[in-house]
């Protein structure tokens, strides 16, 4: 049936509760920043956050105290350097301790794919000879091929309570079309118990070509219409990645004080994403 079309505030309040396992996916492209900011405004706590690349959005959510645990595979500011809030949480436990469940990209892809496929685990040729298995022994194991005897690395499936995506377009039936770099978004969505999507636009006819990445509406729990919802990440065909903002974030997030002040002014100090965009000068 058709998903609920809700305001972003209602969608987040209805779908995400403290203590849940939540994946805000999108690989560099289509990162659901607006949804993450709304979760910060709603003061969610104790979340297990899952993302291949935590990126600025989880740096912000971790720094604001939303997360008790992080599952990830590469935790930097791409092309810039560190995620200072992520580092502060792991190195110093600020604002509180953060448990980590760390993998490689290939491993995270396998875990999402297994979850999307309804399998309890997935496997890959990887991690062999590295220190990853010892560092995360509870979630890295082995299986032996019953035909060849080859030993493979086994990883448990990820099935988030909620996967949140941003997409360019939904139609009025709630079918969602993602276009461009999709990362592991589809797998993260199909793995989830509930799928929530923010979109740039809602149209009558989706207009997607044959074989496009379309998530059928009957699988989607809620849709919020949030233009600019991926900013400072990007939405191909709508706006580019604000690389200058990613460069600027390095300085903003470097100290607890400047981070807290910035979040207070631009996220907690605004009531919705349009307000955030005006506040940081992304719209005039």
């Amino acid at each position, binding site marked *: 049936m058709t998903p609920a079309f809700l305001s972003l505030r209602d969608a987040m309040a209805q779908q995400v509760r403290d203590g849940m396992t939540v994946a805000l996916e999108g690989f560099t492209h289509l990162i659901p920043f607006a949804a993450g900011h709304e979760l910060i405004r709603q003061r969610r706590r104790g979340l297990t956050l899952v993302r291949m690349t935590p990126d600025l959005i989880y740096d912000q959510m971790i720094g604001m105290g939303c997360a008790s645990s992080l599952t*990830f595979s590469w935790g930097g500011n791409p092309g810039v350097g560190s995620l200072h809030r992520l580092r502060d949480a*792991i190195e110093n436990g600020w604002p509180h301790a953060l448990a980590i469940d760390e993998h*490689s*990209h290939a491993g995270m892809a396998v875990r*999402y794919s297994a979850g999307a496929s309804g399998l309890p685990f997935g496997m*890959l040729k990887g991690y062999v000879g590295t220190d990853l298995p010892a560092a995360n022994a509870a979630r890295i194991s082995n299986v032996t091929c019953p035909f060849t005897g080859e030993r493979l690395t086994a990883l448990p499936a990820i099935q988030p309570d909620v996967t949140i995506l941003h997409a360019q377009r939904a139609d009025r039936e709630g079918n969602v079309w993602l276009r461009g770099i999709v990362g592991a978004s589809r797998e993260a969505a199909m793995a989830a118990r509930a799928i929530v999507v923010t979109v740039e636009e809602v149209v009558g006819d989706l207009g997607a070509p044959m074989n496009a990445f379309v998530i059928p509406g009957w699988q989607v729990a809620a849709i919020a219409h949030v233009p600019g919802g991926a900013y400072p990440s990007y939405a191909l065909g709508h706006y580019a*990645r604000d690389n200058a903002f990613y460069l600027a974030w390095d300085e903003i997030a470097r100290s607890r004080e400047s981070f807290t002040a910035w979040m207070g002014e631009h996220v907690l100090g605004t009531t919705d994403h349009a307000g955030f*965009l005006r506040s940081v000068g992304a719209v005039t």
Partner: protein
Amino acid sequence: MSATYTPDEMMTVAAARRLRNGAVCFVGIGLPSAACNLARLTHAPELVLIYESGTVGTRPSVLPLSIGDGELAETARSVIPLPEIFTHYLQRGRVDVGFLGAAQIDRVGDLNSTVIGDYAKPKVRLPGAGGAPEIAAHAKTVLVVMKQTARTFVEQLDFRTSTGRPAAVITDLGVLEPDPSSRELTLVATYDGVTPAAVRTACGWPLRVAAKVATIPPPTAHELSTLRDLHARTKAAHAARVALSHLPSPISHLP
């Protein structure tokens, strides 16, 4: 012939020269991306670049800041789900050259990009593995590009993120290759004006030096201008703030 150049430029040029035309390269952000695109814009126009974001056969005109910039999607032959990059391409053995950097490297070429200090209570938490362990394991040839210092070329890694046994390590001082029998990284070439003694000083273990150390020719004028143009275009592109014009109002309740 060639103008003055920096050690970084020399390193990038030396790395680019390693790539034969038509090779399929799995490209990381930073120095590897610069080297691969320099090769593509000079001697290897049919180099196939794969970025882990899912872009296959991409031909960016500026270097991406992130590994998933729109430029990569828009200039790609094919944009596919990320899991398939790791399964259908890398793990299936369809990648010729994997390019890696790291925070630490040891004498057999194993790499650390995870932590400095203890994993459970790190002194410095680094970004982590990303695509590196599987690039190192599955690319037919692994190349490492990283600046060489005694602090980063270490006797003992703080964490083994990848074990790749690279075919070559291209640094800002020269090139190390594994000894055919012991697999220990050995200095086989230096750049113009760099002595083997200087390279040994910038290494945390007693670096072996090959019987015959080659000298790598400096960048040609064409290589240098191509690289500098690429960096200039990139810098200009990344400095521009993005403005979202004509943002429509959100619609709360639709059908």
